[in-house]
């Protein structure tokens, strides 16, 4: 990733380059940093217009970007030397003056300079002048010069702007009580904030980029190269640090750093494990089981951590289906049929049992500000609760028997999935109904259509506006929908869809963006999640007992992880604080933790506590499987 220190010093392309350039090409005046005359630097005459014979890159463009970068870093002298040696200047004095005028608030001069900066059309010039006048107006208001501000409004902004409706918000700012109020209402940070700099960036779009180079242009190009390299790196799971991104080599993540090895098996539940949720601090994992209990496991962020049973929450009347940690991790919610239980995660004491739903609670989600949580149920209701467990609001009866729901992190939408409420009618003895449900050999509560009749139910994904509680999108899908998760940028919803598909829906456009296939899902509740750095991966359980992982954007199946026993892998959960660890749970009564095979992985994980660990121990399988026969011996 980086060169040893001594090689670095002797490297001619190191940052020490400018010393060499100075001493070799400038007249001998050893002091006078910054006062040295540029005269003695001879202009180098070069043939052609590109940087190499076989390159398409224009030399002038390239050198001007180098000069800009040098200036930005603070190598002013080197930049001046390069201008002299190359004969190119970063920008003309006119552009420099314009930049200075904007930053110093010399508005009249700035407007005059604008006339000579090649703004293409009249419209462009108008709009650029409008932006300058708007800044001027706001600055006058900020300093209490209301008369001058109104003068700008009437004589500059009003004539320039054709649409009076867009002027109205500006003119209403006159009513602001003080400068702080103005800045808040205008969404503007004042003359001494970044507003002039931002104005300059906005004006940039009207001025040809060859005249005024966009700020940090070289870094912008390098960032684009980095993004391209990341998009090529299908196992990408490295944090954005200089250690993982060198300009010297293309970025590629080591596939050994990908979590594909079972490093712990947690085996205490006495029946199928149905659901998993990590605490927000990544230190605890909660598991919900058919054995009517929830276990909070203490996992810790340390390499080779002590995994211990932190709490065993046993007081549930039925099997437990859902879990949700409060934002501060002090409360864990669990659902058991129509009951919701609130647990103190430190003491393991049940704070409250809520019985407001009449059918199975199928989804629990804390709202992003932590003020409460939302429950969804097979009784078609969505309820909003305070963090004290008191009902605050209700959606009433929705169109679907909810199987899962999630709230977008930006707090604008709620995505619910489920079956439409048009319940089926069973076949009549004469066989004239075509809505027969199937009857399985052992427990006929499955959801597959029978050969003698298809089900008439619709499976819907409904996107609600959280403020109005009105549906803004309703999509009818072909199969049972069992899980929904939202990406951290609030744009995508990940929906498990029987049979055998996972859909990625773009909530901004209302379109299906990706499909992931390979996993098996027929009649059971199988859940998936995003995972890894930037949520680059999609991982899901499967009825074939394996764990499936895809690259999110490219929808490539990366891995099929085996290890769980017979039955379904019901749910998966990626550690929110350790991008190289996730957990899966299965009908085989166990939970597995998955981590990279390489011990090195633990040092490169973006978790501080990993940094100081020695490299020798903690290789993949060093953890003993957790097997506990005597519940009385558990540690608290």
């Amino acid at each position: 990733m980086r060169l040893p220190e001594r090689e670095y010093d002797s490297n001619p392309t190191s940052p020490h380059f400018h010393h060499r350039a100075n001493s070799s090409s400038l007249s001998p005046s050893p002091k006078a940093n910054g006062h040295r005359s540029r005269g003695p630097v001879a202009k180098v005459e070069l043939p052609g217009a590109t940087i190499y014979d076989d390159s398409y890159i224009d030399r002038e463009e390239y050198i001007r970007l180098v000069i800009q970068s040098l200036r930005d870093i603070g190598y002013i002298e080197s930049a001046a030397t390069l201008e002299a040696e190359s004969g190119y200047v970063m920008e003309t004095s006119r552009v420099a003056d314009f930049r200075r005028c904007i930053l110093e608030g010399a508005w009249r001069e700035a407007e005059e300079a604008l006339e000579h900066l090649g703004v293409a059309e009249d419209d462009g010039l108008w709009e650029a002048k409008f932006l300058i006048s708007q800044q001027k107006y706001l600055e006058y208001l900020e300093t209490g010069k209301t008369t001058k501000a109104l003068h700008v409004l009437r004589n500059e902004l009003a004539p320039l702007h054709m649409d009076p409706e867009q002027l109205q918000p500006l003119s209403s700012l006159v009513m602001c009580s003080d400068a702080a109020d103005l800045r808040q209402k205008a969404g503007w940070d004042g003359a001494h904030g970044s507003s002039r700099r931002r104005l300059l960036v906005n004006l940039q779009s009207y001025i040809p980029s060859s005249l005024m180079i966009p700020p940090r242009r070289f870094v912008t190009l390098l960032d684009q190269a980095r993004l391209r390299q990341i998009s090529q790196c299908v196992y990408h799971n490295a944090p954005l640090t200089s250690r993982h991104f060198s300009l010297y080599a293309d970025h590629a993540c080591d596939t050994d750093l990908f979590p594909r090895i079972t490093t712990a098996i947690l085996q205490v539940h006495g029946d199928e494990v149905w659901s998993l949720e990590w605490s927000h601090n990544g230190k605890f994992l909660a598991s919900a089981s058919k054995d009517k209990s929830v276990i909070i496991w203490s996992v810790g962020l340390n390499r080779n951590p002590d995994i211990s049973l932190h709490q065993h929450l046993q007081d549930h009347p039925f099997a437990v289906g859902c879990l949700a940690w409060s934002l501060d991790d002090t409360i864990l919610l669990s659902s058991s049929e129509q009951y919701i239980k609130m647990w103190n995660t430190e003491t393991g004491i049940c704070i409250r049992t809520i019985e407001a739903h009449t059918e199975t609670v199928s989804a629990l989600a804390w709202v992003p500000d932590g003020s409460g949580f939302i429950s969804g149920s097979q009784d078609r209701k969505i309820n909003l609760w305070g963090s004290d467990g008191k009902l605050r609001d209700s959606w009433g009866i929705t169109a679907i028997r909810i199987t899962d729901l999630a709230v977008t992190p930006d707090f604008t939408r709620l995505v619910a999935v489920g079956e439409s409420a048009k319940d089926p009618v069973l076949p009549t003895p004469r066989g004239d109904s075509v809505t027969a449900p199937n009857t399985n050999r052992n427990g006929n509560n499955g959801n597959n259509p029978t050969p003698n009749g298809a089900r008439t139910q619709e499976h819907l994904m409904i996107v609600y506006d959280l403020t109005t509680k009105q549906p803004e999108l309703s999509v009818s899908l072909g199969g049972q929908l069992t899980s929904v998760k939202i990406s951290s940028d609030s744009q995508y919803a990940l929906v498990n869809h029987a049979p055998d598909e996972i859909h990625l829906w773009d909530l901004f456009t209302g379109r299906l963006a990706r499909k992931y296939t390979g996993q098996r899902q027929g009649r059971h509740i199988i859940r998936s999640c995003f995972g890894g750095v930037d949520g680059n991966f999609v991982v899901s359980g499967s009825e074939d007992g394996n764990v499936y992982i895809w690259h999110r954007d490219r929808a490539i199946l990366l891995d099929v992880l085996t290890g769980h026993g017979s039955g379904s892998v019901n749910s998966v959960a990626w550690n929110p604080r350790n991008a190289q660890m996730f957990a899966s749970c299965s009908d085989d009564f166990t939970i597995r933790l998955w981590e990279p095979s390489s011990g090195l992985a633990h040092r490169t994980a973006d978790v501080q506590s990993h940094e100081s660990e020695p490299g020798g121990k903690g290789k993949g399988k060093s953890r003993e499987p957790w097997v506990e026969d005597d519940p009385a011996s558990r540690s608290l």
Partner: protein
Amino acid sequence: MGMSYRRYLAGARVYGCLSCRTHLTTIHSMISRAFNGQHGRAYLFEDVVNVIEGEPNDRQMTTGNHTVRDIYCCKCGTTLGWKYDKAYEQSQKYKEGKYILERNLLVDVQ
């Protein structure tokens, strides 16, 4: 077995489990009211949902020998009746694959 939600039914009359109101079947699915179970009157149905079926065993009934399985509510586990796997008498073959639910263990849920 994995996790799944219970089925919900619609119709003029939906019968549910007396103890937990889990939907079981509808009046449209009823074949006969003329049966008797351990708790008195029982009904024969074409189809029943949300039940777990026990192991098959042979039972001598008033109408002859049958292979049947007990059926239990999938939520609360109450024994609700049985399912006919096989009828040995030719005249009773119509019951194969059908379900008996005890009337006293049922409740109208709609």
